[in-house]
């Protein structure tokens, strides 16, 4: 759309320029024509002046020579020379000579008038010749020939002829002048019309250009407005999206904080529970239903020398064994005496049989019963055994027994 408008505008401008150039050219040409025309006017006036000058020079010279031969006044002779110039030879001097030459030159391109001028030259020449003859006769003192010359001369006739010719030339030149003037007038008129038409056309074209430009500008404005509007809409959407993101971000942050807070609360609880358990100086074992050790407290480590990783998932019986209702065993318990190494075989023997020694614990757990203060033996990593009192609590998770907690109170050795 844009390009089309521009090319249209360019075409318009081209036309405007062409019209402008043509108008300017025509105007300049008309100025030249006007100049030429005025030259013709001047030229025509000159022809008229010169031919009339011929007439007056001939008359002046003629009368001067007549006066001179009668009066002998040198002043008259001077006037004659002034008028006729150098007598004899070409008619190229004096007033007559000049007038004739100029008139001849001026009419070179006007054949009819030129012929007439040539006739005029002939006639004027005759008068000059007559004057010369008269002067020569007078000079020689030959009054007889002077008189006969005067008598034979048809001066008046000749002068009239010259006068008529001059008038003829004059009127013909005036007619020519009228023609030329009219031609120049029409030219001027034509040019005026051309110039004004050109100006009107140019203004119309300019109007067209203005309309095209206005049209184009209106279209551009609309496009710009539409663009602005879509930009605004876009910005609004962006703002909304940013706001959404910001609030989503806020939510995430809040959730994050909440989670971290929750974690620390849990950790706190966990730590506290640990602390509670760890602060108990009795041996605490957490057992699975299969009677394996799942957790111990520091007191166990302290007593047995086993680290937690060595005991986890090991059977409880590897560290702690129940003593059955064997009086011998009781006696052992009550009587500290020598190390229990002596009784190992016996205990081993007891342990060998899958006796009811381990059973009571499993049994109690499966039934969900406590077992309190049962005599037991704790064996440390060096194999030394210590007597202890075992209490077992079933570990319930929502009324289901999932394991047990065994607490052993170690008997104090009387040193």
């Amino acid at each position, binding site marked *: 759309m844009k390009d089309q408008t521009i090319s249209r505008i360019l075409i318009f401008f081209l036309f405007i320029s062409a019209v402008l150039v043509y108008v300017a050219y025509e105007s300049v040409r008309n100025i030249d024509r006007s100049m030429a025309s005025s030259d013709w006017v001047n030229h025509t006036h000159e022809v008229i002046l010169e031919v009339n000058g011929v007439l007056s020079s001939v008359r002046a010279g003629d009368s001067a020579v007549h006066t001179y031969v009668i009066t002998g006044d040198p002043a008259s002779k001077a006037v004659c020379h002034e008028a006729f110039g150098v007598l004899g030879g070409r008619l190229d001097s004096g007033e007559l000579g000049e007038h004739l030459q100029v008139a001849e030159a001026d009419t070179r391109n006007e054949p009819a008038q030129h012929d007439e001028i040539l006739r005029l030259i002939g006639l004027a020449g005759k008068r000059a010749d007559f004057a010369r003859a008269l002067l020569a006769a007078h000079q020689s003192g030959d009054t007889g020939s002077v008189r006969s010359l005067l008598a034979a001369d048809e001066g008046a006739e000749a002068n009239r002829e010259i006068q008529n010719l001059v008038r003829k030339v004059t009127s013909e030149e005036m007619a020519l002048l009228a023609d030329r003037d009219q031609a120049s007038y029409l030219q001027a008129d034509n040019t005026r019309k051309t110039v004004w038409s050109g100006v009107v056309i140019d203004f119309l074209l300019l109007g067209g250009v203005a309309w095209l430009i206005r049209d184009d500008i209106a279209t551009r404005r609309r496009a710009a407005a539409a663009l602005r509007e879509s930009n605004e809409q876009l910005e609004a959407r962006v703002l909304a999206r940013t706001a959404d993101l910001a609030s989503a971000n806020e939510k995430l942050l*809040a959730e994050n*904080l*909440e989670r971290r*807070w929750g974690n*620390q609360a849990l950790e706190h*609880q966990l730590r*506290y529970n640990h602390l509670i358990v760890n602060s108990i100086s009795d041996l605490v074992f957490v057992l699975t239903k299969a009677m394996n050790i799942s957790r111990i407290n520091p007191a166990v480590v302290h007593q047995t020398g086993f680290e937690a990783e060595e005991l986890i998932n090991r059977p409880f019986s590897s560290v702690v064994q129940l003593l059955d209702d064997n009086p011998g065993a009781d006696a052992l318990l009550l009587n500290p005496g020598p190390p229990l190494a002596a009784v190992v075989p016996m205990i081993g023997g007891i342990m060998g049989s899958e006796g009811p020694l381990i059973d009571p614990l499993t049994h109690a757990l499966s039934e969900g019963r406590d077992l309190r203060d049962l005599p037991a033996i704790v064996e440390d990593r060096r194999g030394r055994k210590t007597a202890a009192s075992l209490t077992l609590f079933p570990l319930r998770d929502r009324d289901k027994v999932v394991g047990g907690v065994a607490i052993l109170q170690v008997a104090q050795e009387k040193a």
Partner: protein
Amino acid sequence: MTAGSDGTPMKKHILIVDDEANIRDLLEEFLTHNGFRVTTVPSAYEAQQTVKRDAPNLIISDLQLEDSDGLDMIEQLKSTLPKTPMVLLTGVLFDPKVVRETLSKKVSCYLEKTSSLARILHEVQRLLAV
């Protein structure tokens, strides 16, 4: 943001007393994000110093502090700031009966550390709006 009656730009100042650094940091982050000015101290002694220097609009304290018992500190501070709300925020779980009978008389509010941050904020805003 607490509702200032004439829209005062001054943020409310909350003092947090707890010996655990991550508790202090979490609470500070949370409360600052919600438009409060927060000061955190690890001990009762420093709490007292802060109160003298820059009296808070509300105090949140743990029960177990390294140099004192939270309740004792609160008792002492009450004499300096009788009108300031004091919140006990503790990880130690008490029997609701104990809470009702003993603690609620000594503190404006009792909160467990297992409460959500949202709940804590709600209580803080409620106490500061009065």
